[in-house]
């Protein structure tokens, strides 16, 4: 069954990386660009090229998947705008996967600490973080500086700075496919985490 699936995995969550992978005949084929903020320029050509090089049409795909974040807001938006419309026109389903979930999939059997934090780089020396209390389901996602995070959670034993790799994504996507966890393409949005706290922080413009 798995060998018959054809799907794309798109990752635009890193400011300096645009990744496209094609799952075909049980294998993964990847193409990417490391151009800084190059998502708008590179994403669509990468999708076109990887499909063309593997004699695939977008309409041949079973579904598409995308990393929902957290990560570069602009990068995520370019990925989501592209895929929402690709799915609409080609009548394809969409699966979203989360950077934190992917990392935890790899580490859940290797971690003995009671309190950990996973960090993904953001802007202005801030990090997107997920705090986890082992043995419970308690988890908190947020955005902060490293100093603030340590003050907030003084008992953290380990902090992981991660940069998820596309090769970790396939299992997560397949699991969601098997469980039929697709999203509504008209309503789906990136996992921004922060609203930027716009209402309280935005200084009203003066005349």
């Amino acid at each position, binding site marked *: 069954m798995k060998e018959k699936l054809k799907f794309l995995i798109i990752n635009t969550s890193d400011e300096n990386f645009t990744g496209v992978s094609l799952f075909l005949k049980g294998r993964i084929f990847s193409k990417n660009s490391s151009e800084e903020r190059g998502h*708008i*320029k*590179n*994403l*669509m*050509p990468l*999708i*076109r090229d990887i499909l063309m090089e593997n004699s695939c049409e*977008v309409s041949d795909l079973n579904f598409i998947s995308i990393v929902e974040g957290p990560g570069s*807001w*602009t990068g995520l*938006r*370019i990925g*989501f*705008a*592209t*895929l*929402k*419309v*690709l799915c*609409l*026109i*080609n009548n394809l389903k969409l699966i979203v996967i989360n950077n934190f979930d992917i990392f935890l999939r790899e580490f859940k059997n290797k971690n003995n600490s009671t309190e950990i934090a996973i960090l993904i780089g953001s802007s202005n020396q801030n990090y997107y973080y997920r705090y986890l209390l082992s043995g419970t389901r308690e988890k908190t996602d947020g955005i902060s500086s490293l100093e603030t995070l340590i003050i907030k959670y003084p008992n953290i034993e380990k902090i992981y700075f991660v940069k998820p790799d596309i090769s970790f994504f396939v299992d997560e996507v397949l699991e969601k496919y098997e469980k039929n966890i697709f999203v509504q*393409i*008209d*309503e789906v*949005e*990136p996992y*921004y985490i922060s609203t*930027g706290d*716009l*209402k309280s922080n*935005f200084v*009203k*413009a003066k*005349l």
Partner: protein
Amino acid sequence: MIILGIETSCDDTSIAIVKNGNEVLSNVVWNQNKTHEYYGGIVPELGARRHLQVINLVIKEAFEKASISFKDIDAVAVNNQKGLIRSLLVGVSAAKAISYSLNIPLIPVHHIEGHIYSNFLENEKLQFPHLCLTVSGGHNLLVLVNNHFEYEIIGNTLDDAAGEVLDKVARFLGLGFPGGPLIDKLSKSGNNKKYHFPRPMLEESNFDFSFSGLKTSLTRKVNELNTKEEEYKIEDIAASFQEAIVETLVEKTLKAAKIHQIKQISVVGGVSANSRLRELLKERTSKMDLDIFFPSLSLTTDNAAMIACLGYYKYKNHQLGNLDLEVHSNLDL
């Protein structure tokens, strides 16, 4: 030939379907005024998020209204050359996905050029050369349109655009957002001669505009009235202020037409919906043997029909883009 147009330069998500450059099959515009009202102006990050939230819904509505299917589209035109970067990125991403999926050409266009073409959607009598006043919250230009894609900018704003000043003044007066239509409405019941505000740069020999000082003049006047505890009607303030802007726009435009011996004037952009601007220009041009053209009110603000219309002429002229198309916040016309 059927062109799909996409316009997401600021706070309007718009998709239009236009046949043969002038038959508008649909022109759907989802406005974000309520999203930005709280802030008294556009918040770029919020705007981009709203564009992404609604993009598929707007596409679907455009096709439903046009009663055609995806495969009937021959090309997709998108504004990628003027606007808020984060907002433009949503429209351009969508355009690329459509172009690739349907294997149809992608046509990059300039937002202001789109406004200039909004009058070609409805006015067959509009010809070359003509003088175009493009006036909105983001631009304020006088352009000699000599032929398709041949422009000569003879006037520009040195600071704020007229629409931007109207928005800022409306906010100062506590009227709300967007300011232009609110001031226009209020002015109808006010006396536009009650207070005098300057007509900036009318004595200059060039065709440039400067409205920044005008808004300072208004704040001073209102503060003065408040300090002296004089009673005043906000309608009179709005009408007098609007008159100063309108007269400046009209005088500069007519002077440019005369000096450049132009017989047709086209007015486009959000402020071209202003009722007093339309009234005064019609009145003045009728006495000067000049033709004046305004788009329908629905085509004055940002809309994708104008983008599709321009896309039609660009397609005929083989001005196409590729899937690696990028966006620019302020490319020259």
